[in-house]
């Protein structure tokens, strides 16, 4: 019994020495914050806290955080919405009567994007949408800090069409369809 107690006492002293070293070591902060630096793993002493809004961890330029959509390059194929495991992308398309333009990589655009919403509150940053995108218009950026007090702010809208424009395009397509039907009926 005394042997156990003595052992416990010795190991307790050992532990106390370690914590004291950390307590004293807390006078400085950890110097190397960038994991890409060669000395990162040799500078592990000191406080690890990064006081976030004021200090930031260095991140790589090609970091993959929040999604961004270059809507001019989008052909509204809906592949990203289908690939999304958490269904955070909502797309509504309106068919155009004719080719409406070309994306920067030469793909033909035949659909208007009436709605292109990404709910960043649901997004799990898997990046599957960026993989399937044929025109590479949906990408992940190095933005990660967009905190907001309102949940609605977390739904990012990328569509640029005004409501009247959407209504007009819808009417246009309806008229085109009606014309086609009429032509078929004749």
């Amino acid at each position, binding site marked *: 019994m005394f042997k156990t107690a003595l052992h416990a006492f010795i190991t307790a002293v050992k532990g*106390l020495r370690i914590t*004291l070293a950390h307590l004293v070591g807390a006078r400085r902060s950890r110097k190397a914050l960038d994991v890409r630096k060669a000395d990162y793993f040799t500078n592990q002493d000191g*406080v690890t*806290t990064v*006081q976030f809004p004021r200090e930031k961890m260095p991140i790589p330029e090609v970091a993959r955080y929040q999604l961004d959509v270059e809507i001019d390059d989008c052909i509204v194929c809906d592949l990203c919405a289908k690939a999304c495991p958490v269904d955070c992308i909502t797309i509504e398309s309106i068919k155009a009567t004719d080719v409406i333009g070309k994306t920067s990589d030469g793909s033909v655009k035949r659909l208007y994007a009436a709605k292109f919403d990404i709910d960043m509150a649901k997004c799990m940053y898997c990046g599957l949408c960026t993989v399937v995108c044929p025109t590479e218009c949906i990408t992940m950026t190095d933005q990660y800090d967009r905190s907001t007090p309102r949940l609605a702010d977390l739904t990012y809208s990328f569509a640029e069409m005004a409501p009247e424009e959407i209504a007009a395009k819808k009417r246009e397509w309806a008229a085109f369809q009606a014309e086609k039907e009429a032509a078929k009926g004749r």
Partner: protein
Amino acid sequence: MAFYITYIVVAIVLFAFIALFTLFAVYSERKVAGFVQDRLGPMETGRYGSLQTLADILKLVQKEFITPSAADKVLFAAAPVVIFIAVFLGFAVMPWAPGLAPAAVHLGLFYVIAVISVDAIGLLMAGWGSNNKFSLLGSMRAVAQIVSYEIPAGIALISAVMIAQTLNMQEITLNQGIHAEAPALFLGIWDVGDIGGLLAWNVFQAPHLLLAYIIFFIASLAECNRAPFDIPEAESELVGGFHTEYGGLRFAFIFLAEYAMMFLVAMIGVVVFLGGWNTPLPNIGSLKLAEWTTGLGWGIGWTLAKTLLVVGVQLWIRWTLPRLRADQLMSLCWKVLTPLAFLCMALSGIWRVWVIGGG
């Protein structure tokens, strides 16, 4: 009539001191925890988070009293009061400086130990009154622990009292410095009554008292329910132990009692073993360091410094050691600390009779 006002003023001053100490101790506890774990601790409220605990207490004061419907209303409401008063009364006899103690009671040490024990009843009231399984388990553990650990703590204190030959805390302190009335013998051979300082402290007057102090320190950790003996609270298994159901000001009082208890047991250890308000600096020839640094202001300063140092060690231990299991706790108390404390007491008797030479 006038002395009644003095009593009230003294009580208010002590309460203010305890409240301030608690604010400071909780802050330093969180900071020490942070630093030990390579974190920063509170940083946002005030400069370096210094107003954090003040904000916490303001929040607690504003909260409503919530009594569970199944609780025993009377016990539930009375428990925090009993817990706090038991600890608060202990401060009545603690000496702060030469001639400065709220009450110079001849049975001071006995009184403190007795009144601290009332704390256990308060804990049991809290646990039983809450009518909650976690609370009840926590309070059962607390009572078992406190009652058990009072034995080694008490006997370790007795072994010091046998050397000091008095229960008056002011006299115990007096005899550990340059104002000693009885001969202060360093290691029982060298009269250091004129040299004073560190050498005249009880732990150095009789070397086995160092062991007694360690026993007392460990037991006192258990008595104020602090890690590694915090099984009554055991956050990870019992939610909050006996104070699970408490909130608001009632919880604040339990918390206040806990930190006041830390200070009180640290102070008892300091007074009985570490020279109380006596200076650690000895007189060296014509360099009368001990005489220069003994006095009212110095006394309060030394008491505070020593006690806060011991409290600091308590914090340090809390953030280092994991919690003991209930059976380990009991076997440490009954199989290790109690026999060692009895050994200390026997040695004290022998020391008193053969080394110092009767009393």
